[in-house]
């Protein structure tokens, strides 16, 4: 990542931006309180001046007297400017050129904080790839493939940096060298989940991480569904790869429909609990995504024309017994007992053939089952 720090130094902040960031980072600040403040005073600078002067009243939002006092004591624009410069954080105000949500969707954040080395990724077409955290190996593979496909077409992949589908989509796009945007529910200085520290670094170097909350805000459960509206708003098209019936991905899809974005869903087996949400979306009218290039159609693009090389790696042809097991799986997950009973092979024959399939990469183990790849 040579040369990257230069782009960080480029970030200069107007007084208004620093004031906005200061307001965002006040304790107990919420998107609604921020919106009311900015609306009432007309600009972040004026609002901050009122906060510091202790001139807030009941008409400037629902913050109580003790919260207003805490705001007055904690507001420190000078420290915030130093912090923004040290971190290279950008402040995007609603209504300015840099603000990435072009259409006035309801509830869009008044201020977005963003960090990363590639702000240009937001000028490209953007597709959100979202899904469940408890994804199946098939779902993860789909998300990874889709991320790579979109990256190859110059499309930026937007997702939420969560485990499961989100991380797989980011991974796929990053591996293909494409642009990525991660929208987090926490503050920009918090890494959640912790095991994604490396993924956070990669997203920073190949794209941007965006947050509407101030520094230091941790992973509180209520923040994630609210965050999902930003993912929907930032994207031109939302693809749901795998979703359970009651998951955050369906919330994202609902926001996307409210905002007039196209929603595509990857269909799955009715036996797969992780596909129940996507299948329900399709039943509700979402477009079933079978060919990745359909995403480009939804974006109004045509494929870049470079014929895609098949992504399936070359594998040795399975022996007849191994093939019998693959047939017995039928593209669905299974367990050895089921395979033995469906294929009629003895347990030992199943074991030997499974060992062969595992080694050659035809199958993989996850969630206590055998998955054909």
């Amino acid at each position, binding site marked *: 990542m040579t040369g990257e720090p230069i782009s960080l130094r480029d970030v200069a902040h107007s007084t208004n931006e620093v004031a906005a960031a200061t307001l965002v980072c006040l304790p107990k600040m919420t998107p609604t309180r921020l919106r009311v403040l900015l609306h009432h005073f007309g600009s972040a600078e004026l609002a901050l001046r009122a906060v510091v002067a202790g001139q807030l009243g009941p008409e400037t939002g629902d913050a109580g007297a003790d919260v207003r006092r805490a705001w007055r004591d904690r507001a420190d624009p000078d420290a915030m400017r130093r912090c923004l410069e040290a971190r290279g954080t950008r402040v995007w105000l609603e209504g300015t050129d840099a603000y990435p949500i072009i259409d006035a969707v309801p509830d869009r954040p008044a201020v977005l904080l963003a960090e990363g080395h590639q702000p240009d990724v937001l000028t490209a077409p953007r597709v959100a790839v979202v899904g469940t955290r408890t994804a*199946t190996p098939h779902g993860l593979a789909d998300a990874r493939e889709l991320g790579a496909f979109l990256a190859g077409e110059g499309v930026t992949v937007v997702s939420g940096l969560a485990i499961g589908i989100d991380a797989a989509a980011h991974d796929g796009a990053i591996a293909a060298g494409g642009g990525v945007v991660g929208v987090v529910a926490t503050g920009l200085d918090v890494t959640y989940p912790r095991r994604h520290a490396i993924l956070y670094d990669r997203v920073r170097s190949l794209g941007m991480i965006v947050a509407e909350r101030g520094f230091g805000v941790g992973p509180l459960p209520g923040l994630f569904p609210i965050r999902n509206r930003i993912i929907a708003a930032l994207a031109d098209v939302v693809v749901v790869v795998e979703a359970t019936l009651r998951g955050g991905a369906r919330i994202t899809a609902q926001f996307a429909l409210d905002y007039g974005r196209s929603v595509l869903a990857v269909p799955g087996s009715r036996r797969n*609990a*992780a*596909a129940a949400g996507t299948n329900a979306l399709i039943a509700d009218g979402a477009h079933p995504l079978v060919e990745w290039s359909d995403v480009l159609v939804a974006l109004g693009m045509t494929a870049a024309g470079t014929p895609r090389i098949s992504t399936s790696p070359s594998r040795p042809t399975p022996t007849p017994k191994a093939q019998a097991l693959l047939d017995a799986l039928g593209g669905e997950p299974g367990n050895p*007992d089921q395979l033995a*009973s469906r294929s009629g092979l003895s*347990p030992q024959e199943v074991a030997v053939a499974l060992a062969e399939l595992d080694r050659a990469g035809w199958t993989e183990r996850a*969630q*206590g089952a055998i998955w054909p790849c």
Partner: protein
Amino acid sequence: MLASVTSATLLGVDGQVVTVEVHIASGLPGYHVVGLPDPAVRESRERVRAALQSSDIAWPPTRITVNLAPGGVRKTGAGLDLAVAVGVQLASDTLPAGALEGIAVLGELGLDGTVRRVPGALALVAAVARAGCTTVVVPAHDAAEAALVPGVTVRVARDLGELRACLKGEAPWPDPPAPPAPDGDDEPFDEPLDLADVRGLAWARRALEVAAAGGHHLLLTGPPGVGKTMLARRIATIIPDLTDTEALEVTRVHSAAGRPGHGLIRRPPFRSPHHTASVAALIGGGSGRPNPGEVTSAHHGILFLDELGEFPPRALDALRQPLEERAVWIARQPITLCFPADFVLVACTNPCPCGLGGPACVCGEGARSRYRRRLSAPLLDRFDVRLSVGSPEPTDPPGESSASVRVRVEAAVSRQRARLAGTPWRRNAHVPAGALERLLPLAADAQNALLVETEARRLTGRGGARVRRVARTLADLEDSPDVTAGHVAWAGQLREDVP
């Protein structure tokens, strides 16, 4: 005016010979017990005096001192009562001197002079036999157990008066009571279990056989309702009977734990403690006199832990020593006791707290990873066979019956016994890594398969050794003289990574 009587007390699951010395001296009437007695032993005074008086035997109105030697060992329980009572009579010259030459006395006294059973009779009699006693007087209830010790004449004491007459030669010794007909098995189940009740699950059944035959620890993972527990409980029906030595050890342990038996225990024990069991209940210990825990009760049998993930992590990690060394050492000032704990661990667990696993899971990420952390990697590593069990197909036929599986398991066990004759080990799972090459050799193609398996699964040295032992057991179950590459591949497949 001194008499000494040989008796014994329990030290863990072993007997310790105690010499009860009774000294009667002129002086103010009194009674003192010295030599580390526990409260039950100190209270023997009241029981002994009442029992003697109930049996119309005079209590000497003098100063009585009872010494329990060796003085450094803590004596527990009421099993020394009878020895004290006999010693008092000897010392006060109401019994002929020499009446107890070479005779050891065990038993607890009731206030009416009846003799009650003592826990651990087998271990106690074995101890006094080792100390050179040729005759032992035991409570009627313990006669069957005492008779298991070779080279000892067992005499039965029913009450103090009768015993006195017999010792004086005025009456013949009573016959030992006929062993009570075993009133059914100790099976806590209403219906007899049989493997034929389990449909499908061909792999899991084979894994169960492997555990039963080779002494391999087994972990079954899967959602609730697929038959994990049903299957695991049926391992009790396919393990072979205990050998004579094993049966003696098991009987000794269970007798010492105070579980009344009917002579020799022939079936391997099956213990399934609930997951609220404390560390002391599971491993042994407790304050004061260390007691054997479930791992010792499962000695030479099966320890079944259902819902492994619900056990306290401390208890599970404490299992690691007995799993590795097949014994538990419990240290208490001033002694360290060794309890045997050679068991096969069979455990079932759900993939996550809600049990559904995979995409159907409704647990939070935190709850899921906490649940996973409970089963530490070192513990999981000790399971030779780890298998996830999925739902059986609805069309699966009922499985093989326990009787025919047991024939196969017994054959595999005797193959192992022949192979491991002259070594300290009995099962494939016990063979240490250093002796694998010598005792469980692999042909070239199997060796090759093991290398492939090691590579593909990134097995550690210990993991590889475990695959090798399981492969040998699979071959034994097929009555195959050699381990084939297929057995190795299968053994590898039976060692799944736990999600």
